[in-house]
């Protein structure tokens, strides 16, 4: 397989996390940045959060244009399945205070014990889920 694209894409993700910390002093945790926009939060720091989140699709579009190919295939599940999965991701990242970016990248890079525990747990749960849905049911 091609190893250069995942490795350099990963390095770009790291660079984004370092920049957000160096400039704004913030962890690039996507679930947390979304959560900060939701009620009952006061709207005083909504600007940088919205700008960051709008940057995500913009960056993906830009990459697709530069590579000259589609980088976003359609989702895999039915609308109902996407609703269930999205709800679990929202509830889980709120309870667990982070997702793949906040715990899996920024937290691991800070050697946070909580982030190691969270990353091992969500990896294990996802592997079991894929095993059950792809091989047993």
């Amino acid at each position, binding site marked *: *397989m091609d190893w250069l694209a*995942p*490795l350099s*894409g*990963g390095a*770009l*993700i*790291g*660079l*984004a*996390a*370092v920049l957000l*910390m*160096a*400039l704004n*002093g*913030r*962890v*690039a945790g*996507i679930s947390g940045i*979304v959560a900060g926009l939701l009620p*009952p939060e006061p709207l005083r720091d909504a600007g*940088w959060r919205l*700008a960051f*989140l709008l*940057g995500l699709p913009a*960056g*993906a579009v830009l*990459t697709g244009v530069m*590579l000259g190919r*589609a*980088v*976003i295939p359609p*989702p*895999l599940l039915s609308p109902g399945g*996407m609703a*269930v*999965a*999205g709800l679990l*991701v*929202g509830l*889980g990242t*709120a*309870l*667990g*205070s982070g997702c793949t*970016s906040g715990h899996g*990248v920024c937290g*691991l890079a*800070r050697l946070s014990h909580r982030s190691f*525990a969270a990353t091992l*747990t969500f990896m*294990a*749960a*996802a592997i079991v*889920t*894929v*095993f059950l*849905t*792809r091989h047993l049911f």
Partner: protein
Amino acid sequence: MARILAALLAGVLLGAGLALSGMTDPRVVIGFLDVAGAWNPALALVMAGAVTVTFVGYRLVFRCGRPLLAESFSLPAPKAIDSRLLLGAALFGVGWGLAGYCPGPALASLSAGATGTLIFVAAMAAGLAVVKAVRANF
């Protein structure tokens, strides 16, 4: 204004990194999680690249004492590993394994305009809001 532009730049880089690395394709993500199938190691390389750059970069940044555009670093307070953390991470893992989307790739994929992606993001926001509301009121 500078802080908003900085966040936009970081978001664009992160979205580009996700798209370049194949993380906006749920089949690539599920290919990594599917250890009993045709295993695809891409996600491990993405994590390795991202964590290495962040590990080194954070050390350099923290040595500066403060961020360029803010008073101080906003870091999560050190806490113990508790059951809420593990339960939350487990629920998140189930949702991630079902759809092959974690929050970043889901938001980056909104640009393709698929209804399923929009539903996922709306449900995710609802989940985040519910936990937040419960925490604020109890």
